[in-house]
């Protein structure tokens, strides 16, 4: 191992040590009492990014696209303007394609994937893919949740599953919606 690698790993370990207590604190700095799934703050987005203290812009599902026809969808000007910025959106967590995946799909309404009337790729167009740093289990599917994180736009295919997404949020915080 050369010196540089060692130095980098030390920095990473230090960051991780600082990060651990953060996971147990809510936004107001108090210890959270919710179930473990909501204790995981900063799941994917590193806390030292410049937008750490940035106010999250609220986003609604019906604001994602300004145009839609059989020839495709058009991102709304609002969505385009929030690209790379911190956003907050509420919706329902659709069941992950596999329990071990480090992403899930956020939908406007609760989803049921019907094996015969639809296919496994049969998602509505207005969905947001939520990226996580690690797989999560036991999130509620029947109650709305609010996700905060950095907005990503554009075609992306998940290597493992082939799942295609256009709108993604690299999750910083997930909590039950009020």
């Amino acid at each position, binding site marked *: 191992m050369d010196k540089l690698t060692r130095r980098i790993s030390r920095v990473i370990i230090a960051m991780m040590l600082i990060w651990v207590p953060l996971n147990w604190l809510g936004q107001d700095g108090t210890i959270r009492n919710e179930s473990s799934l909501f204790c995981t703050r900063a799941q994917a987005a590193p806390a030292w990014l410049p937008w750490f203290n940035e106010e999250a812009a609220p986003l609604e599902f019906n604001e994602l696209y300004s145009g839609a026809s*059989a020839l*495709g969808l058009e991102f709304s000007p609002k969505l385009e303007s929030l690209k790379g910025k911190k956003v907050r959106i509420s919706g329902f967590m659709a069941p992950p394609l596999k329990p071990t995946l480090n992403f899930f799909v956020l939908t406007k309404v609760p989803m*049921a994937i019907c094996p015969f009337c639809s296919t496994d790729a049969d998602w509505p167009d207005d969905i947001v893919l939520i990226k996580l740093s690690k797989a999560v289990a036991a999130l509620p*599917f029947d109650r709305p949740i609010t996700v905060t994180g950095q907005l990503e736009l554009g075609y992306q295919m998940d290597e493992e599953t082939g799942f295609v997404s256009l709108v993604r949020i690299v999750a910083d915080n997930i909590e039950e919606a009020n």
Partner: protein
Amino acid sequence: MYNLKMSTLCLSQCFRLLAALLVVMSLMSGTTVSHAAYSAPEVPHINIMPIDRAKFLVGQKFDFAIEVKTDIPATAIEVLVNGKAAETFFGKQAIISLDKMSTYRINQVAFPQTGKVSVAVTVKTENGIEKRAVNYDIPADKVKKPAKNVILFVGDGMSLQARQMARILSKGITEGKYNDLLEMEKMSNLALITTSGNDSLVTDSANSASAYATGHKSAVNAMGVYADNTKDPFDDPKVENIIELVKRTRGMSTGIVSTANITDATPAAMLAHTRKRSEQNFIAQEMLNPQHRPDVILGGGSRHFLPKSVPGSKRSDERNIIEEFKEQGYSIATNKTQLKQAGTPDKLLGLFQLDNMDVYVDREVTKNPAVLGKFTDQPTLMDMTKTAINVLSKNQKGFFLMVEGASIDKQLHTMDWQRATYDTIEMDKAVGIAKEFAKKNGDTLIIVVADHAHGASITGTYHEKDGKTGREAVRIYADAGWPTFADADGDGFPDDPNPDVTLAVQFANHPDYYENEKFQDVPTSPAIMADGKAIANLKRAPQGGDLKVGNIPASDPSEVHSADDVPLTAEGPGADYFKGIMDNTEVFHGIVRALGLDGRKESK
């Protein structure tokens, strides 16, 4: 005297014994005649595809395949067709692979003569031999006056009860007599169709549509193939389908129309061959294959036709299938206005939604912007059917058109019988348009059939006028009276999907869900998946409803298909074929018989 008496007694005793014996014998023979024995189904070690008792159109192409499972590797597979070596009979060499799972295959063969065919397979291993024989039928049945055109309507999931709900809502009932019947009910012939595939009692739409399109059974999720043992969804032994047959042998025009993704199971099964119906991107590009390229393609699901870089696409490549169709001379329409402007080109591709088209209630009655979004200009199934007939009927050689009312099924899955019923009525109106066309020349066979059923049944009516709610407000027997649907504008659709007295429709199977017996403003799933289990959707009955505990495995969040037989109605030349109880593969044989097709002929 004494002797005489004795002999008379003896005679009468003998007579009685004889009579008793005769009675017993006749009873025994009667038993063997009326109750054929059968054994419980088991998977044979030698799997022959096509299956035993398969029926073919003479000259219909298929892949002949055998799969053999043995404990030790097989050393030889010998196949005789009508006593001749299969390779000699078909005039083609077999591809044989010998192991513990051995295969024998001759692709693209056909039976050149009508009649019975027997296939005998002998498999040799070092331990001995195993044999299996199957029989095929290649009927010679000919119709006196053939049909020029065939229009096949598939009401997806349209059970007998689904038809009746549409009759009640569309036509109304007075003093127990219906004010009128549906268009699909006013047809000359009626048959009941069984729905099972060769793999399972309960079918899905790919499997059953495949039976209609090929005359052969298939398996759940498969179309145009017999399902083999391999995982590859594109290598299963194929069977020639109706679109391929009418194009190859007659040069007829063909069309598919659906309110679903046009790559969805039912329309796809008219032309494609795959083990996996979810391969919708493959199915979209297969529609370009000249072997089975339909001249008219109208429906939803453009997302499988757009290159992946276009937002909304579900493709995994950059192929622009819409552009490729344009290059083939197709006119393109993406909304109702463009469909009208298209007129009657020779070839037409119309895709009106990225996903499934919205259902009639949302599209035409409530026009709820929360449901439709930007898709406010979608054609009706009537518009699409009329255009398809206008375009296809230009071909003097005739046409085959399949029209699917797709969301009857999709809405019954989500236990939304009101939305399903409006879509059944929509398809009925499309049947009316086809009947009007058929009336002009009398050379069109129209068939209306479902592909499987749903366990939805009419218990009575439901109202809360006396303050009762939930199960107490389900009105049964004399309390049911009549629902208060009305159609003041006479368009065939009830004005209000949610009248004060509605139908009490109950489902034989369902997941955990909330029931409030009312029309829902937006389509809402009855249950959602949570950690691999279906749980009742709280959004289903926001005003409150009874929790119904599910009676199917919690792995499925929707109401599922039932194995019930389904009604078929038909009218036109060749409709006489459809009567009594028929296997679902007979729908194909009724179509090819009506058209007088001969698979041995090649169109110039």
